């Protein structure tokens, strides 16, 4: 039997009695100093796949409300017993409290920005080159394309942050792969500002017709913890 962990919350926050986690297991709050860790006793180690990812996320989402946003834990962290969990979580109590304060009354939103049309001329595959010279040329084109895409991604990220101003309290940026992908953005936004944030994004989408904006969220702040 192992203790599987989902998220960290302020001490005293109890899960709903009906909440179930991985493989339908009950979820309990394990107190560790000033914080609590929601966890499940599992008879065996969880496998992988989308279903268990959904089950993990469902518990973290259930811990969110308009006032409290949990620190989401990465999938797959288990402890042999309660003492080991309390010791590990309690050792970083001040870190968890700092994050909980930063996340309170906020959620993460995601934006994937892509080109509206795939640029096949720039979708270079050096491995398909038929000679060494062609390989080197294709590699150079790919590197130039990636560099240009990064600059474009940074520019879009900056533009959104400038226009959003205080609507976005924190941001992360990752460069995307593929013939269309440019950048993937994560923003922390207060629940009270979510409508204004979405209105701003809709305006930007109508202005930048050569790009596709795909929105997701609200999410627990997975992208804002290490």
């Amino acid at each position: 039997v192992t203790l599987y962990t989902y998220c960290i919350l302020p001490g005293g926050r109890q899960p709903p009695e009906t909440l179930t986690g991985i493989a339908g297991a009950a979820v309990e709050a394990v107190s560790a100093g000033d914080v609590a860790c929601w966890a499940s006793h599992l008879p065996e180690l969880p496998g992988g796949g989308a279903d268990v990812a959904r089950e993990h996320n469902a518990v973290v989402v259930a811990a969110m409300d308009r006032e409290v946003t949990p620190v989401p834990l990465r999938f797959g962290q288990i402890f042999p017993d309660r003492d080991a969990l309390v010791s590990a979580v309690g050792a970083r109590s001040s870190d968890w409290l700092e994050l909980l304060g930063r996340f309170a009354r906020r959620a993460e939103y995601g934006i994937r920005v892509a080109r509206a049309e795939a640029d096949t001329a720039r979708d270079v595959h050096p491995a398909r080159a038929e000679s060494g010279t062609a390989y080197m040329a294709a590699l150079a084109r790919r590197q130039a394309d990636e560099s240009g895409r990064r600059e474009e991604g940074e520019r879009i990220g900056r533009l959104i942050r400038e226009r959003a101003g205080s609507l976005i309290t924190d941001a992360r940026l990752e460069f995307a792969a593929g013939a269309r992908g440019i950048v993937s953005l994560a923003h922390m936004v207060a629940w009270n500002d979510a409508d204004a944030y979405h209105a701003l994004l809709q305006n930007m989408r109508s202005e930048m017709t050569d790009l596709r904006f795909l929105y997701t969220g609200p999410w627990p702040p997975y992208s804002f913890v290490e």
Partner: protein
Amino acid sequence: MAEVPMSPEDELSLVELVNRVLDKGAVVSGDVTISVAGVDLIYVGLRLVVSSVEAMRDRANLGPKPP
């Protein structure tokens, strides 16, 4: 019952979910036992960041080989 195909929106949401749950989120301690996608019981040394299977695949793909 026949399976209902996923819409592009559903697929995007699933990709976003899996990316977040497997690749991101806080690591409680470097010294925890991890079970990810069938790769059971990977013991992770202190301060070593744990990667998802997705990230491991990315790193394994070291780029194209010259012809």
